């Protein structure tokens, strides 16, 4: 892996893309076997892996819009990496098809006979019905696709010639995009994850799903930077100061995740209404209790004390370890959101969980890496780029 000195393009594409594609294909084949052997397990495992990656990709979209809106300079050198991650939206849309195929295995409310005898589901059927579900899904992907494509294209076009008008346009897109993003991610989380238990509801649920996604996209950016740094790419441009700032964001959104998770839990615990507490009760049965506690300590308490100091955030080995750990925790989080509807007695890890994760991870990494190699890996013509590389934390 090498970088062209003036164009900042990856000269010799490494084996990352090819290996990832291989992993994706092997994972897909295994997943298909899993589908024929145990289709409910397959669809639930698929949804875990799918929402893991979807939230990560959407987190990157949020990251790009946020940096445009606040006019951040430090992150410009990282922007193309985040843009490459967010440009995987079309792939995510294609990968959504199996979820639609598995609708009847995943969503109880999609069975007309079940709705007919259930008063609550009947009352909700104006919203929770197959047709409207598909229409909404199309709208979400349309919004995400248009936003990510507009921002990616404007940014790449700027590489050949910088234009202030285009920069202003990206800021305007981000401003409107932020509002659309908040609405679409909230409702997508309601539709695809919360409606797994159609009797249960929580208004903050969308924010919870978003917070984990943003956190994992920040650690994914960190991991891509570290990966390239080890191969001598952008090792001078992306300095410890950037890792320190990524560390601060990781820390901040890890705390934000815990804050939102607890906000949801506290109100339900306090009110103690059975139709609300049932969701947490399902996650306290058998080994689910251990997974719940693993999330509390592994996704928040322990990383909080590890990452709170400044030296920890400037230590690359520490940051890499924490990034990998938090990505794993993000997967556990989504496993914990989805699987209790299938395995009610306790967590039961299956090889299909691994196969679907391998399939989607392979395809996503391949797609993102292809985008990363297609253009300069930093916004080369941005006049603030030099400033972004040289900044230091006080």
């Amino acid at each position: 892996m090498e970088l062209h000195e003036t164009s900042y393009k990856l000269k010799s594409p490494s084996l990352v893309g090819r290996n990832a594609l291989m992993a994706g294909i092997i994972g897909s084949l295994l997943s298909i076997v899993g589908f024929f052997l145990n289709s409910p397990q397959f669809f639930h495992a698929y949804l875990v892996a799918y929402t893991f990656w979807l939230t990560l990709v959407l987190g990157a979209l949020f990251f790009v819009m946020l940096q445009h809106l606040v006019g951040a300079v430090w992150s410009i050198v990282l922007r193309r990496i985040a843009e490459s991650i967010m440009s995987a939206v079309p792939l995510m849309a294609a990968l959504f098809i199996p979820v639609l195929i598995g609708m009847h295995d995943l969503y109880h409310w999609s069975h007309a006979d079940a709705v007919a005898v259930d008063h609550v589901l009947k009352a909700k059927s104006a919203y929770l019905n197959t047709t409207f579900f598909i229409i909404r899904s199309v709208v979400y992907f349309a919004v995400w696709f248009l936003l990510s494509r507009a921002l990616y294209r404007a940014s790449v076009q700027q590489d050949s010639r910088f234009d202030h008008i285009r920069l202003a346009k990206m800021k305007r897109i981000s401003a409107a995009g932020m509002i659309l993003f908040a609405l679409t991610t909230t409702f997508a989380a309601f539709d695809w994850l919360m409606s797994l238990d159609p009797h249960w509801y929580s208004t903050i649920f969308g924010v919870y799903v978003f917070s984990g996604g943003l956190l994992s996209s920040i650690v994914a950016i960190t991991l891509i930077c570290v990966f390239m740094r080890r191969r001598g790419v952008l090792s001078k441009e992306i300095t410890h100061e950037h890792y320190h700032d990524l560390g601060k964001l990781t820390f901040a959104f890890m705390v934000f995740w815990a804050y939102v998770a607890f906000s949801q839990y506290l109100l339900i615990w306090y009110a103690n209404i059975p139709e609300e507490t049932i969701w947490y009760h399902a996650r306290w049965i058998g080994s689910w209790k251990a997974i719940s506690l693993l999330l509390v300590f592994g996704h928040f308490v322990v990383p909080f004390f590890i990452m709170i100091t400044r030296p920890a955030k400037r230590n690359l080995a520490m940051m890499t370890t924490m990034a990998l750990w938090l990505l794993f925790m993000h997967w556990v989080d989504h496993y914990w959101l989805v699987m209790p509807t299938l395995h009610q007695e306790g967590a039961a890890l299956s090889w299909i969980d691994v196969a679907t994760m391998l399939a989607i991870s392979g395809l996503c990494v391949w797609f993102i890496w292809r985008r990363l190699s297609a253009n300069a890996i930093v916004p080369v013509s941005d006049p603030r780029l030099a400033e972004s590389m040289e900044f230091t934390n006080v």
Partner: protein
Amino acid sequence: MVTTSGNPVGIVAEFDSPASLLHAAESLRDAGYRRFDCHSPFPIHGMDRAMGLRRSPLGWIVGMCALFGASGGLLLQWWTSAVDYPFVISGKPFFSYQAFVPVTFGLGVLLGAVAAVIGMLALSRLPMLHHPVFHSDRFARFSDEGFFVSIESSDKRFDSTETRSLIESVGGRNIETIAD
């Protein structure tokens, strides 16, 4: 104007530009001076390093105080709800830690924030209502257009002639002795 009344407590010197002030700070740092300060109308990039300032211990003070506030908050609620006046609320246990989190968190943030403000003032030795450098009329320009260095005579390395020549050698002008 050279102030002559009272005991000399240090000297101030003027510099032409941020760059020369930065250079002067580096020279003083390398010569082993500790009790000196740089004054400019705006923050100068890299000045902390040039002056050889160590990292502020404020973060640790804030962290410890936040931890103290949080544990104090939890202890307070445990004592009032479970020990001193046990009272059943919504059929929940006396020590319902879930319900205690907001106050625990709030007191942690409160004490941390208060410690940040007071600690910052204390470490900067503020409020300081007067300092002898203000005897110098010229020095007042530091908040407008001047770049100054002040060195206190309590510094171990301070020597009225040697320090003066060091300042001159790095471009200091209008050197004044400050008296209290």
